[in-house]
């Protein structure tokens, strides 16, 4: 019957389109990973990960200081953004209807859409110009601004998933609101919040513009938080646009290190979700 055939076509075509689109998304990711691995894997040795960079033409250059700089700035960003973001999410969860909550939510959504270059410029004007120096501290603050909205929004979502009936049970036992939040709601949402934090860290680790404008770069080991500091994204950027093949090679190697780090963070987050779902 033609009618039946037509119905089958109508059902198969959209399904095929969706399937192909999903495949395309995966393919792009795998192509990027494959290509970076192909070009970068050869460079990676233990000394590449731990040595300081060398001038063009001098062999044995590494990315040790950039790796450390990135870790320090991302950690600093997380240190600033996580307590602030989680506390804000607790406020949103406790006062969902208040106008401050609505304003916070709106600000977080807008902030998560602001280009990272603008955030870099903001911290550059606010800190670097005022103090007259590029620093890891400024870099960490810029990354904290990047992470903050992601943490606020995911943490609020995770807190909202804690059923009202648990909170009522706790309050009906005579626990105060504060005790209920600290002893019941936050622990119950902790795994989910940790996933949000990991995703925010992964997002921040790869940001170039905010660290380029605030921490600049350096060819030395970072000694304190108040001096220009190297980072992986800036090193990749500098090396990749240089005309020298050995630097370009090292840019691929650094890119591989960065991508693997981000990938590991994402996979850990997925693992967290899987474990949590199995328990719940």
């Amino acid at each position: 019957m033609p009618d039946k055939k037509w119905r089958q076509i109508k059902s198969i075509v959209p399904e095929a389109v969706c399937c192909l689109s999903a495949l395309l998304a995966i393919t792009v990711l795998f192509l990027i990973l494959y290509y970076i691995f192909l070009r970068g894997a050869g460079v990676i040795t233990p000394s590449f990960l731990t040595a300081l960079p060398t001038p063009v033409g001098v062999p044995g250059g590494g990315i040790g200081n950039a790796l450390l700089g990135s870790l320090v700035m991302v950690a600093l960003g997380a240190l600033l953004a996580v307590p602030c973001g989680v506390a804000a999410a607790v406020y949103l969860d406790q006062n969902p209807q208040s106008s401050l909550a609505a304003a916070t939510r709106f600000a977080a959504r807008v902030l998560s859409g602001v280009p990272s270059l603008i955030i870099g410029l903001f911290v550059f004007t606010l800190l670097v110009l005022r103090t007259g120096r590029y620093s890891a501290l400024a870099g960490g603050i810029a990354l904290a601004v990047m992470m903050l909205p992601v943490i606020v929004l995911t943490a609020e979502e995770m807190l909202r998933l804690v059923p009202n009936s648990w909170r009522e049970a706790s309050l009906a036992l005579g626990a105060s609101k504060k005790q209920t939040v600290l002893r019941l709601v936050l622990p119950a949402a902790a795994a989910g919040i940790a996933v949000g934090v990991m995703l925010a860290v992964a997002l921040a680790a790869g940001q170039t513009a905010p660290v380029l404008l605030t921490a600049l770069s350096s060819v030395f080991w970072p000694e304190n938080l108040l001096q220009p500091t190297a980072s992986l994204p800036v090193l990749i950027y500098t090396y990749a646009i240089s005309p020298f093949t050995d630097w370009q090679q090292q840019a691929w190697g650094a890119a591989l290190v960065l991508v693997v780090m981000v990938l590991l963070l994402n996979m850990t987050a997925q693992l967290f979700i899987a474990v949590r779902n199995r328990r719940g």
Partner: protein
Amino acid sequence: MALDVRIENLSFWFGRQQVLNNVSLFARRKEVTALIGPSGCGKTTLLRCINRLYDLYAGARIAGRITVGAESILDAGTDRVELRRRVGMIFQKPNPFPHLSVFENVAGGPRLHGLAHGRALQERVEACLRKAALWEEVKDCLDRPGALLSGGQQQRLCIARALAVEPEVFLMDEPCASLDPISTMRIEELIKELQEEYTVVIVTHNMQQAARISRQTAFVLNGELVEAGPTAELFVRAGDSRTEAYLTGKMG
């Protein structure tokens, strides 16, 4: 020590909507008082006034007077945390803390209020689980999450949890609504035992249940208390035609 609960001229609004209108009721100590009435009539709200759980929700407004023992509890200065320790609540859906073990579910409350520690705490947990008729079933799996128990066991765990903070009044909001008949029977037996030491106010949709376990029954309709009286009399000869219609299934 059980305490009387006296509700006088209680009215309650949620935003613009009036949920309770001039309700007065006396729940005598060491008795079970059943609240019956169609869904949405305000029974649960009435229950939640007695431990001030309504405070959690924005837009709630209350007028009238409730006394638990000698204390007037609707005053602004009432210590709500202490009130809720003295007035325990059992919810319609069993809600043990799923991330805590059976033991911790019961031990959390006393620890929070500093009522017991160490060995004394363990003894208290055991005593409460025994009182809730759950000990024999869980004594070998106290470390397992409370969420792994059956629905009926979870509800008895909630009762043990409430017992552990030494309440004087028990509020129960359809505690058997999600349970099978056997679990229901066990909870009912438990309620009968509880009334020897506590005041119990229970909301139920099950008229047979009200008849089986309560000394006094109050019929609530559209936010008003139609009548309250000894269960044995009310079920035989209701004073109000609306109560009779409800009890005989002609309404609701």
